[in-house]
């Protein structure tokens, strides 16, 4: 139920952006429809994949790494 409410809000946001005022844009991305939605989603996914990947291939150590 909560999940579908969340999805409904997202859809509303997407639809709203087609009719939003763009006169006071501070940034070129403000002129593009759905820019911030795509930025949020892609940025989030990209960050998670990048960081988790970096952790797996390089950074992760045992919790007592420095005690050895």
């Amino acid at each position, binding site marked *: 139920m909560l999940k579908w409410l969340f999805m409904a809000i997202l859809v509303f946001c997407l639809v709203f952006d087609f009719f939003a005022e763009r006169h006071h844009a501070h940034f070129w991305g403000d002129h593009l429809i759905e820019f911030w*939605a*795509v*930025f*949020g989603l892609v940025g989030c*996914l990209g*960050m998670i994949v*990048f960081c988790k990947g970096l*952790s797996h291939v390089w950074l992760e150590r045992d919790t007592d*790494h420095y005690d050895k």
Partner: protein
Amino acid sequence: MTSSIFMHPAVLFIVGAMLLPLFKKYNAQKIWLVAVPLLAFLQIRYLPSSFGCVEWLGFKMQFGRVDQLTIVFLHVFTLMALIGSIFGLHVKESGQHASAWLYVAGSLGTTLAGDYLVVFIFWELMAFASVFLVWYRKQKRSIEAGYRYLLVHTTGGLILLGGIFLHYQRVHDLSFVAISPDTATLAEYLIMVGFMLNAAVPPIHAWLPDAYPEATVTGAVFMCAFTTKTAVYVLARGFAGFEALAILGAIMTLYGVFYAVIENDARRILAYHIVSQVGYMVCGVGIGTHMAINGACAHAYAHILYKALLFMGIGSVLEMTGRSKLSELGGLYKYMPFTMLFTVIGGISISGFPLTSGSYHLAETFHLLGFTALGFYLMVKYLTPHDVSNLDLDWFYRRGAGWFMWTARNPVSASNEWISNVYKNVGLRFTMALARALSWFDWEGIDWALDGSARGVVKGGEQVRQFQTGKLQQYIGGAVAALFIILIVVVFI
């Protein structure tokens, strides 16, 4: 003029901390714990714009300087002291409360300071008081982390002091006012580095995620609020408009959040997220316009409150379960529903959810918030934390300390041994020969003279002893004979 120093809110906390054991003795510690921060919170409204000017060794020290920028931070610091003290009411040890209050006093003193000397004094008080909040956890890991924390902050304090000295040598004025990026020299940059260390700007940020997760439950609530935000205040006061801060702040926001995503210990995640959030403030200070500084201060105010709330939530879990690793926790909403509720409130505030203190009310916010949430929702399985810890730049000083110890044990110790061998073989023989020569001289030279005279005295004494018979008539006879001889000599010559 000097007496006006007693209206300083830090004095309230210092005296309050000293009287804590007394109140504990009479079972009034809880009342005192609420009364002092509440009094300070009310009192800061009535501070004059300048007070506590002291002349000391030819330096003019100003303990109180109040303007709009100061009052924002004073307000949130005293409020946070009140909230933190209430959260810590259950803790019976006076020592923990005392160190927390001295830490608050350091923070307030730095915020109110009008010159660099006073800044430095309270800066060090802050570092030395807060380390006890780590040590009071009383575990081996905390004690080690506390020492590392102290060493890093002492280094930062020395860099700051060096900068202050050079600054004084150049301008002969220690007043703490805004520095223009155009006139800044090495001295000002050293001061800035000292401040940046406390703001946890990479690459000198690693003390924060190293120490905070090892602090006590209530100590972490205090620590997350004061050190970094005091540093944001001093940067905003002195170094607004330095472009280096804008760039490093932007790096900081990403750096902190990257590590927060991959960590496992809940308090370590929050610690990394402090780095990220303080990055926004440092970036705002670096941009340096009126609006950017206002934004940084507003963010600092909101951040202190919700970050403390999150530390309280995680701290409650740690207090009840003894665990803070996410891989060992789960399903607690059934047993700790209020903790869950408040932690969620803190969590949505930090994401800028509408109607919370982190909200900025922008149209983009809904898009960013919603679709970032969707991203996390899709990746939640992939994000499952593992029981590992990630390398960070504390590697340099933790491994560095290891190398230092190795150097101390091996090359230094080995050369020490070599030198003592050389000494044993060469030096010791030489010393022995010298000792023998001296001994001969002592025996034959000095003793001959001294003992010779001593022997003379003994011999003379022995001969004199022959005359002493102890018989009175012989003495009288001798005396009469001597008198007779003297008379003859006097009469006839």
